[in-house]
């Protein structure tokens, strides 16, 4: 569903805002569950939207395309920090917090662990965080520009590398968009194989991230065991699909390759191992007061704020939001599996961990059911060089990933990518202010925005 709005209607539009972007002539805004509206650009600009989540997108549109959101000119850049072509440039200055006795702590862009780059500026008073400003864009690689002018088959390699931890989900959302633009329905076997890969990716990420959070709270044992469970899933993915992260396996039109011989057994064995150990690890999480003390009430995202940002994934679901792109707008094959989506209300680190722990057994069930009902037949259909517009979505482990593209004679004329993280970064800025500075690594990990996914 797509329609043009006048400038007044554009600004008055209500709904759960997902993303905003511009092309040469129009500014587009996407609302749940897939309602696309656009307004004509006037003198290289468009009226700013008041939705909470729109800020990053309007800054990005200015940095990428030079289109100004009128009424939002004062916002800082998103990805263009004024660095010279060789990368040299001024160190950023941030306005100081007016509170008496407040001082600033600068972190990044190089972080202390094995993490992506980003700059965090904390205004703190003693231990309490008064304000956090995230300055992102350090992973910016110009992906949208690289995808333009290429065929969907060629551009799929970029979609798979927007955010490596959600490579299957990004490839899937891109494939959905390209297939809609070309009027193509992928074969049933490919649809099931895609769901198997997507759920394996989800449970692998949930396992390792939950472990990493326990590790941050001093429970190295849990980190080690959860990392091992992730490793088992990665090895099964290697055996079944020929790649530990299942990169480049989902392509427009279907899947690149069939389940390898012995792949089914490898996957089932890994799922069995995860299922066997999960209850005891979960008990450790719930039984240790010192661990609960670190996570309960830490990094609060109130349900009202999560709703205002239309937060998805475990960030939204831990704060009372029911959204899951697998159900709404929904895509094949999930309508056949009566999907269970856990929802919590507390909005703290503990709630986000709880949601993720509950999603693991559900993903195990889905993979088993998909394997049991795996239809035969073709794996991939070759798309004809089409002209048209496509909107695609997939639920990554951290929330909905949206792709919009316009094909012109089989080549991508324009494209936009909205990772769930984009709506979650501002929530991290808020959550950090509900706790002390020392809790920030735990809070950051519990929301786990993708730096690469937002910076493009």
């Amino acid at each position, binding site marked *: 569903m797509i329609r043009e709005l006048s400038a007044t209607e554009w600004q008055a539009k209500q709904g759960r805002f997902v993303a905003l972007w511009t092309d040469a002539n129009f500014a587009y805004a996407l609302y749940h569950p897939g309602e696309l509206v656009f307004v004509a650009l006037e003198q290289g600009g468009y009226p700013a939207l008041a939705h909470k989540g729109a800020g990053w997108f309007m800054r990005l549109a200015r940095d990428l395309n030079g289109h100004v959101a009128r009424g939002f000119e004062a916002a800082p850049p998103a990805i263009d920090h004024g*660095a010279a072509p060789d990368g040299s440039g001024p160190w950023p200055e941030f306005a100081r917090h007016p509170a008496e006795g407040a001082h600033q702590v600068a972190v990044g862009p190089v972080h202390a662990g*094995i993490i992506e780059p980003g700059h965090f500026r904390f205004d703190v008073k003693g231990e309490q965080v008064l304000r956090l400003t995230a300055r992102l864009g350090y992973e910016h690689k110009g992906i949208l520009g690289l995808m333009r002018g290429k065929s969907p088959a060629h551009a799929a390699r970029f979609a798979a590398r927007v955010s490596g931890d959600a490579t299957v989900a990004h490839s899937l959302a891109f494939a959905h968009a390209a297939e809609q633009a070309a009027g193509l329905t992928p074969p049933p076997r490919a649809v099931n194989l895609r769901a198997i890969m997507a759920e394996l990716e989800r449970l692998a990420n949930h396992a390792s991230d939950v472990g990493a959070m326990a590790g941050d709270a001093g429970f190295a044992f849990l980190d080690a065991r959860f990392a091992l469970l992730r490793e088992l899933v990665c090895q099964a993915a290697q055996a079944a699909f020929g790649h530990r992260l299942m990169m480049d396996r989902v392509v427009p039109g279907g899947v690149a390759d069939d389940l390898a011989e012995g792949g089914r057994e490898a996957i089932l064995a890994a799922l069995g191992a995860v299922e066997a150990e999960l209850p005891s690890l979960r008990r450790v999480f719930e039984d240790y007061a010192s661990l609960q003390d670190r996570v309960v009430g830490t990094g609060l995202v109130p349900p009202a704020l999560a709703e205002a940002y239309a937060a998805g994934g475990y960030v939204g679901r831990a704060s009372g939001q029911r959204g899951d792109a697998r159900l709404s707008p929904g895509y094949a094959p999930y309508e056949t599996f009566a999907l269970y989506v856990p929802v919590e209300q507390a909005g703290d680190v503990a709630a986000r961990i709880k949601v993720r722990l509950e999603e693991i057994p559900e993903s195990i069930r889905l993979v088993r059911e998909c394997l049991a009902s795996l239809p035969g037949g073709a794996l991939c259909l070759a798309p004809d060089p089409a002209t048209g517009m496509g909107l695609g979505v997939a639920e990554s482990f951290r929330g909905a990933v949206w792709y919009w593209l316009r094909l012109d004679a089989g080549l991508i004329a324009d494209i936009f990518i909205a990772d769930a993280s984009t709506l979650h970064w501002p929530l991290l800025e808020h959550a950090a202010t509900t706790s002390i500075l020392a809790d920030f690594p735990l809070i950051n990990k519990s929301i786990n925005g993708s730096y690469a996914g937002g910076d493009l």
Partner: protein
Amino acid sequence: MVWKTTIRHILGRAAPALRPDPALAKEMSARLQAGGARKLGRALSIRHVAAGSCNGCELELRAIQNLIYDLTQYGLSFVASPRHADILLVTGVSNRNMAQALRQARTAMPEPALVVAVGDCALDGGVFKGSPVVLGGAKAVVPVDLVVAGCPPNPAEIIAGLVALVDAHDTKMPPKPKILPGMT
């Protein structure tokens, strides 16, 4: 019964202490010192910098520390600051926004230092080659000693690369920490 144990201790004789064969002990001690110096010389610290990655390589860098690959058994471990590091491990393309931070991280390291580029992006920009905001691979910003190719390279390949690098540079790198006086 506590009193029984107590009486046995009072009345009993101490068993002769077990003593190793002096010749064997001497030989083992010499071997340990020689081997220890070599091994300690290999105990290198790694600082990781992602300079424009997709975070796929970071996942595999975490995997090389898990119970199966256990990086520390090779004397290698990740540290939180370039000032503590012998090896700078770069993932991702070198993009415009990260080039300066990458240069600064390399400058902050004590010499001698090695630079390892992990992944196809750090090799030459990978699929992102040709983007106006991508300077190229890691060598566009810092001199590189070793490249581990792959998208992403799997954990075994990353470890094999790191161990090969340490082997190749064994003679050039002074042992760390320095051998204490009295050890030969």
